[in-house]
């Protein structure tokens, strides 16, 4: 009921009919998404790259993956370059953020989103999505670390759950891909999701 109302409200606020597909929920597929940014502070952070990949059933469609580099308005600071390895010159040929996000929205459509600390990525994306469409990302969000927390709590009801990515990767026995590449991180999150789904926490 509330959901339907929210949707109506969002449809009303939507500026551009091009983005109406965001409101048509498609549940046959999911999209795992990850962003690399100039900072970890949502207020200052600018996009550097976006990686996304669709999940259909048990299959990660890495053959149709989405990866773009984004040209930030300010130079990335030295500290963040060390993490993601994208130097100013690497992203200087990137897309304008609005263009990158528009393409991403095309890719996502009405599919639910999957990610590790997805809240952060969605908050960054919304900085661009809202001015563009008039609404925040309306897609259902599946937080991998949250599902993992539920799974561990079911196993040991009164334990502290370690939610670091390395712990999840090891515990759920998915391969460790080179980190801090947006597409690799999106694929890692997909594999974590499939491993959790198999354990009944999808």
């Amino acid at each position, binding site marked *: 009921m509330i959901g339907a109302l929210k949707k109506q409200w969002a449809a009303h606020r939507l500026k551009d009919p091009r983005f109406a597909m965001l409101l048509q929920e498609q549940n046959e597929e999911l999209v795992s998404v990850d962003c690399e940014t100039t900072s970890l502070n949502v207020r200052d952070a600018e996009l550097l790259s976006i990686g996304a990949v669709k999940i259909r059933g*048990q299959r990660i469609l890495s053959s149709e993956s989405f990866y773009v580099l984004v040209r930030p308005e300010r130079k990335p600071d030295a500290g963040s370059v060390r993490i993601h390895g994208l130097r100013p010159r690497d992203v200087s040929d990137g897309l304008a953020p609005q263009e990158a996000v528009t393409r991403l929205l095309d890719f996502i459509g009405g599919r639910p989103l999957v990610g590790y600390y997805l809240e952060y990525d969605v908050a960054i994306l919304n900085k661009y999505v809202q001015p563009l469409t008039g609404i925040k990302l309306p897609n259902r969000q599946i937080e991998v670390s949250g599902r993992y927390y539920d799974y561990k709590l079911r196993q040991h009801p009164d334990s502290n759950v370690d939610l670091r990515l390395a712990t999840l990767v090891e515990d759920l026995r998915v391969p460790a891909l080179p980190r801090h590449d947006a597409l690799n991180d999106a694929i890692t999150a997909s*594999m974590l999701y499939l491993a959790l789904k198999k354990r009944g926490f999808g």
Partner: protein
Amino acid sequence: MSRFDFTHPPFTHLSQHERLALEGAADIVFFDNDEVIMAPGNSVDSLYVLIKGVVREMADDEVLAVYHAQDTFDARAMVAGVATQRFVVHEEALAYCLPRAMVMQLTESNPRFGAFFYASVSQKFGALAQNAGTRELQTLLTATVRDACSRLPVFADGQDSVLDAARLMKQRKSKSILVRHRGQLGMFTTTDFRDTILNELPSSTPLHQVCHFNLITTDIDGFLFDALLTMTQRNIRRLVVMDQGEPVGILAQVDILSYFSNHSHLIAHKLERADTLDELQDIAGQITRLVGILSSHGVKAPQLGRLVQALNARLFERTWQLIALPEVVANSCLIVMGSEGRGEQILKTDQDNALIIRDGFDHPTLQGACQAFSDALARFGYPPCPGRIMVSNPQWCQHEQGMRDQLYRWLYMPDADALMNLAIFVDAEAVAGDHALLAHSKHYLNSLLSDDESFYARFARAIEQFDTPLGFFAQLLTREQNGEATLDIKKGGIFPIVHGIRSLALRHNIAANNTFERLQRLAENGHLERDFANDINETLAFLLGLRLSHGLADLEDGRPASNLIRPGKLSTLEKDLLKDALALVKKFKSLLRHQFRLGAVA
């Protein structure tokens, strides 16, 4: 940006560009425990590369192969487009799923990848056929163009335009067409098509102006080897196949590669042609690599053993022929013994060989030749036998009479090594020279063997030398070595079976050398129960396979292949199979104890 490493065969043969393209086209699939990835009759549109987890290949309830991370399956099903075996997930599996069309295209555009790839396919076919070894060698030397050529030619007229040709090629999915023009025959290929564009010729250009007429042909009954040789020498990819002066087909390089595929054919061919020890040394190295390739594609240890035996026999024969003078070769018999004679020696370990010389023949070069032969083998990577069972040792380089005296002494005046020497000799197989000399010696040995049951008991007793490392509660008994738990699979499992079967074969006068063959004959003659013989057969095949995969891993790490396996590295499934295998070894030992009354031997 590469996510998963493609640094394992067959992908090592791809260029960086091709790897990236393949990775870009690949999906990742997750399979749950016990999920069936494909079953007989399913259509197959992808090749799987395991990223993590374990997958079993099954025929009914029998496990045919176990796949781990980096293993590829199933090449054969992918080429055929339909699965013939069941692939079941043993432990949560994450796999790369490579599209069939792309892999097939790579096998065409990259001949080395293609060769490797088809090697695995046709080997799998070969492995299914029993006693692949020797039979395969015969077929390949006699294979003709007719066996491999399956492409029907597409014909066009010389007056047709390039545009017509393009339409025809698309319609018939052909990369080349034959052009008939005023009684001449020409060929037009995609390469010519490219040149037509580059030369800015109009698409209405008649074909006879752009095709080439100096065609290189091969006869349909010609040997496939010669066709391959022609292609290599002329650096071309296709030959026109002629039957009584009429073009009947196109033979592409990839057809030949897919037919020969397994380098075993090529190795055999090279062996026939080698003229120097250096060449032979090179080939000896290739045999080890071949074993690695075939083993990684699921060829079973018993079949591999027979194949390697056939190749080694030719290698030894050729070496002996290069070293010894023709009259020496003609008046002697070079034999291999022990596991080499049984056809169960897959990786190179010790030399076990001997020479029987015709009575009355002598030659001043004989001693030198024997020494040179042992040295050459050592150079090829067969280390000298610690027990010095090799032709350079006078005890194993004897005239017929000397060998007879020796056999007599071993039987009736045994010293410490006599029974072991006898056991090794029982497995002897002739590889070069006059094979009759060995047959005579074996005949003499049989005539000496009487109904003296106490001899057979003494002979069989060696099975008690080592304990089988399986505890009362079916736990694996291991020893620490360099901080790692290890288990000697030869002493604990392979030797008791091989020697037990050898004892039974000797007792019942069965001439075969190979343990699997001996088993079959023992069962046929009612000396062993059929079901029990089958169990022993499977157990030995499993143990040999396990020793092989560990030996290959040893070689890869730069260590010599040993008989020690590390149970910690086995999967749960393999550990269970190993326990079952050792339990059967124990059962077999107690049966032998009963049959030979070992308890009664002093």
